[in-house]
């Protein structure tokens, strides 16, 4: 079984549009939307959820003012700047609290307890492109990396049971926690970039990350015709760094048009040039 993650570094390069289209041309796979804090794949694959479960959020400290003696030990010890002293009271800044428990453990009068933060929900769903595992991170929640790891465990269980050949992952933007969780232990990273200065900058950083995990990097230049000189620069960079460019996709309105119809570009325009390119990408990544 091969695991393939679509990443980009920079947001908005077309990861989800391309991944969901690929989902329609690659056979025998499980799909995961790893962009748990701004998931979009469900909008074009219109999944029917068959399993829905909640996932507990991070814990936050809470002060019981009946017991608090205003000693301030908690604030002195907190390294996340999550406790402030205002209006003669120590207060937890929940958005900063990391749930490390230190204040709770250190409070000499037991006035601090930990409470559960907002919880997330994860789903196993049926789509016309196959089984999909996805999630909705609790608003403001901070455990996106852990949630991605959970989705990947679930997908792997399904893929093993169903004897699937592939797991196709739509990654989040950036290079941080949820991205690391999306590329650890995969076989192929498809890097969707665009011919902009930001696109090149971000491609370099995400490749440096995926190289830590010894994966095969394959590059897709999306909207390549929006700036042909910059596309040349991207091609030069890829050549110098042994990055294989597997496709150049032109800017085309049909990506947005298909999204408006809640379809992937393959469903919406099966005979289009774009669909042909998507099929070629699908062939390339499933060939070896």
């Amino acid at each position, binding site marked *: 079984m091969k695991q393939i993650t679509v990443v980009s570094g920079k947001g908005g390069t077309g990861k989800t549009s391309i991944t969901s289209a690929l989902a329609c041309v690659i056979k025998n796979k499980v799909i995961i939307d790893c962009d748990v804090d701004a998931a979009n794949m469900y909008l074009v694959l219109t999944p029917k959820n068959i399993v829905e479960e909640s996932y507990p959020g991070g814990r936050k400290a809470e002060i019981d003012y009946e017991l608090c003696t205003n000693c301030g030990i908690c604030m002195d010890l907190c390294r996340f700047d999550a406790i402030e002293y205002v209006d003669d009271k120590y207060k937890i800044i929940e958005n900063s609290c990391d749930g490390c428990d230190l204040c709770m453990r250190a409070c000499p009068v037991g006035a601090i307890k930990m409470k559960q933060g907002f919880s997330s929900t994860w789903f196993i769903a049926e789509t016309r492109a196959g089984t999909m595992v996805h999630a909705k991170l609790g608003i403001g929640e901070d455990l996106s990396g852990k949630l991605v790891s959970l989705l990947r465990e679930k997908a792997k269980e399904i893929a093993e049971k169903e004897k699937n050949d592939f797991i196709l992952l739509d990654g989040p933007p*950036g290079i941080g926690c949820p991205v690391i969780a999306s590329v650890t232990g995969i076989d192929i990273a498809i890097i969707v970039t665009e011919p902009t200065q930001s696109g090149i900058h971000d491609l370099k950083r995400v490749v440096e990350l995926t190289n830590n995990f010894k994966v095969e990097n394959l590059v897709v230049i999306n909207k390549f015709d929006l700036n042909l000189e910059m596309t040349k620069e991207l091609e030069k960079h890829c050549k110098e760094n042994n990055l294989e460019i597997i496709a150049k996709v032109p800017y085309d309105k049909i990506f947005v048009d298909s999204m408006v119809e809640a379809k992937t570009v393959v469903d919406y325009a099966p005979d289009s040039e774009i669909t042909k390119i998507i099929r070629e990408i699908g062939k390339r990544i499933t060939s070896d």
Partner: protein
Amino acid sequence: MNFNKKIVIASGKGGTGKTTVAVNLFYAIRDFYNIPAQLIDCDVEEPNVNIFTKGILKEEKDVNIKIPVIDTDKCTYCGLCAEYCAYNAIVFVESMKHIAVMEDICKGCGACSYACKFDAITEKDYNLGKVQKFSIDNNSELVEGRLNIGSPFAVPVIKFAKKQENKNSLIIMDAPPGTSCPVIQTIDDADYIILVAEPTPFGLNDLKLMIETVKLVSKKIGVVINKAGIGSDEIYSYLKAENIEILMEIPFDKEIAKLYSDGKIIVKEKPEIKQMYIDMFEKIK
């Protein structure tokens, strides 16, 4: 008029034009009112502001956390440090008298040092990234947070970058995409949040998530619709129903896209767009 405000440019979805709006707002307002202004790039995973501002590096600081070092001569293998660690970053096998710190997942909270009663834990710096200051023209500066590649913890780098703020100036911050913790850290003390959205189903979906997120910190918000003309009109009826102001609409235009792709500043090339930014600022100041 008091210009000393913190304006954050955010969006749930990536690639909607956050950095474009942050940089162009900065130049348009700074030059029109001739005021001190500072840009802070809080998108520490992929900081792109300096691609446009092309500032000259003047200062660099490491962002470190303190992580434990266990002295196995003093350690009694009581296991309390591992018990205190909420991140499972200390591997302890009592039967084998084995104890080790997993440095890459330690968040440096200090609970293990607090737990150890035998002075067996000291601490060392562990680098997560850096914060750099760049001079840009007309005595302005850019503060950029940059997360090390491979480090999962963006929040300390964002916090450190924000600590460099110059309160006696207009501050414009470029937020990371998404709706999770790095975004909350960026927006939590803003005076105003500009949400940049595109009128597509993905754009609307993520704008809704972002508006829910912003409700957590209850700030003043307004929306910039970028790439207006693509997608559908659904975003307009949503914003009307939610009673959220549309601050500006930037049409989808291949010429603007080309300027952006070359790392150029649009308000310096197109005076009519500069005027749009000045008009927008009138609505929020």
